[in-house]
């Protein structure tokens, strides 16, 4: 297998594994219609010696630039699937392909880089860093991605981009506040800005409105959809809320660890 460093934006993405092709040497191909493809994903957790299967052979495809909703009841394995897609965890069996490369068995460093630069994630509980201000929270992924030198070189431009993103999610008045001074909706909007700062091509959201009231949920969702459309980002949202699912381009329903 060839190990090459490529990525959608041309950014350094570390060593990745390319799909073996029968028709000649590996090539950079035009964007396929399928951004992310999962094949036969199995995942089980071991609790006190008992194996609890969560995903039992999930196959799915996320279409490039589209909004896909993954719905299902509590405990159907939606969040686990999202974590696997976001390389936070590795499947027991099965393969995950993103942008023509297999990402589930990448070395840790390469997966870290992928999460940092290519995949944005949004969580139900916002997961902001309480010690940092809103602006700093948004900038953290770029701080992680860039070294000292890179950070100091691009600090101004990045701060401007972060401010712009926060403006687009309506958080301009909260730049220097700490997360504990924000409402749930504001925290989630900050998290959205953070997920987008590194210009990812894929955004995975785990119940982004699950902790918000309806009005705030709508604001957050609208902001999320608008941004993803503007930036042509492939969006996958795990939700049990049918109203959200109804706005999606595609819907994938998980029942008992399988795609129904």
């Amino acid at each position, binding site marked *: 297998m060839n190990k090459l460093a490529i990525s959608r934006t041309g950014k350094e993405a570390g060593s990745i594994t390319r799909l073996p092709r029968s028709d000649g040497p590996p090539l950079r191909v035009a964007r396929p219609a399928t951004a992310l493809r999962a094949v036969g994903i199995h995942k089980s957790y071991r609790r006190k010696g008992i194996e609890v299967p969560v995903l039992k052979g999930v196959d799915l495809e996320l279409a490039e630039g589209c909004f896909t909703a993954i719905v299902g009841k509590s405990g159907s394995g939606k969040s686990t699937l999202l974590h696997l897609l976001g390389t936070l965890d590795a499947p027991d069996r099965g393969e995950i392909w993103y942008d023509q490369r297999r990402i589930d068995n990448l070395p840790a460093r390469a997966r870290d880089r992928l999460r940092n630069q290519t995949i944005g994630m949004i969580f139900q509980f916002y997961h902001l860093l309480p010690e940092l201000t809103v602006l700093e929270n948004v900038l*953290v992924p770029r701080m992680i991605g860039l070294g000292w030198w890179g950070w100091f070189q691009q600090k101004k431009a990045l701060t401007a981009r972060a401010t712009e993103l926060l403006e687009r999610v309506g958080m301009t008045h909260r730049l220097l506040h700490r997360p504990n001074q924000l409402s749930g909706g504001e925290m989630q909007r900050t998290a959205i800005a953070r997920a987008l700062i590194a210009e990812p091509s894929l955004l995975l959201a785990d119940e982004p409105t699950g902790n918000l009231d309806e009005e705030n949920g709508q604001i957050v969702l609208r902001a999320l959809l608008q941004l993803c459309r503007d930036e042509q980002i492939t969006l996958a949202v795990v939700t049990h809320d049918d109203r959200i699912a109804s706005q999606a381009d595609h819907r994938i329903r998980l029942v008992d660890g399988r795609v129904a």
Partner: protein
Amino acid sequence: MYKLLLSLRYLRTRFIALASIVSVTLGVATLIVVNSVMSGFASEMKDRLHGILADVELASPGLGEIPWPEEHLREIRDEVGDELESMTCLVRVPALITFEFRGRQWTQQVMLLGVDEQTFGAVCEFQPFLLDSARREKLDFMLNDGTYDQRLGDCGWSYRRQKESNRRQVEAIIEMGRRNREATAAVPEDPATASDAPRDVVFLPLPAEVPLVNAAAKPEVASQSPGPITGFDPASQHRPQVRAEDLFNPLRDQHTGIILGVAIANRMLKDPDTGEQSELFLVRPGDDVSITLPTAGDTPQPVIDNCTVVDFYSSNMHEYDSTFAFMPLERLQKIRGMIDPVTGSASVSSIHMRFRPGANLEQLRDRISARFPPEMFPYVIQTWQDTQRPLLSAVEVELTILNILLFLIIAVAGFGILATFFMIVVEKTRDIGILKALGAPSSGVMSIFLGYGLCLGMVGTGVGIGLGLLFVRYINEIADGIQWLTGREVFDPTMYFFSEIPTLISPWMVVWVAVGAVLIAVTASVLPALRAARLRPVEALRYE
């Protein structure tokens, strides 16, 4: 960048970090204070020990003698002349010193050293410790006046004259009483009046020539000659008449000068109520003392000589101050009979050498030993460190052990950091998960906590160094403050060699302490940092 940002932010927002910083701070400050005091103590003590001891000493064992010292000096100069700065000969003999205080005789044993006025000061650090400022410039054994240290009170010539005139006055009064008694006894006793009835006693008027106490100090009194020698002297024809000026007159003359260790002469008194210290001098410069010492030779005989105390030696080393008395070398050689009547060569007890600074004393000692092989010359040849080996090695061992113990204190602080960090890692588990979800590598997460440990160690060490140095700078004031607060004396100058707590800050020591403390802080954060790095992001995110 995020590592530094988070490390600093954690440092600022975690109250518990403050506890770790304080423990590092205290450890570092303690280490610096104790080291400074100990090395100050050790170096001051070494200076003092070295002061009276020459670099290298060639001594005859016990009370033995080194005959022909000039030849020895020449041999030594031949052997190590290139490194030699100066040499001096000494006579060392145990002696008894007897002085009068409040009408009683007090005797004390001393180690009497006969020193050469010309060369002794160049070889041994002696003059700076004398209490007569004039003698610090040039060593002699003459009584002075007005140049003595304030703490001695009345002393010198004025004190001697005052004392002598007081004695004469008392003698005159006693003499008068005697005459009075004679006058009364001359009257034949009348049996009629020889009853128990009180008698009228007629006193003769006070003699007009008794010098007044205050007038006695005037110099002209000194030239007053005592009355002519009267009475029958059968040998008067055969000896030349002694003029009054040639007779020993304490108002004008002194015996051989002797310098006493100050602790031989004084007693420290402490007021039980106020705790204030005062000094009582049993003998002062200007007093006469007598010394009893053995003669040299095969059968030592006691000899007695009179001396006049001319000065005190105060090195603040109690061992020295309470032991040594110094007098001129020739005089001691003479009264001990160390001068060969035929050749006129005087033997000595030891030869002391001072070498150029930085000279290798051990090597020089060995070279001299080779020149005087022990089979032929059973001399004791040793450096000053050899002489004080037990004390010096005790201090060194003490310092080493103290350092180990104190580093253990910092190690305890290190375990505090370890525990604190584990707590912080547990508390920050979700944040660690977030960082990992955002693409932070394990090494990055690890460096956050290592950096946190480093920041903590550096801040703690920095504050500790500042605190320690301040403490050392004002240590005597602090000791006074503690004494004032608790009413207990922290540092008793009478117990030690020093009037103040001595300190010596070595920059290297500070650097080592700082490096050690920071290293311990970083080491203590390794385990928690590893744990943080190994957290799986999914579990960390799920952690509540």
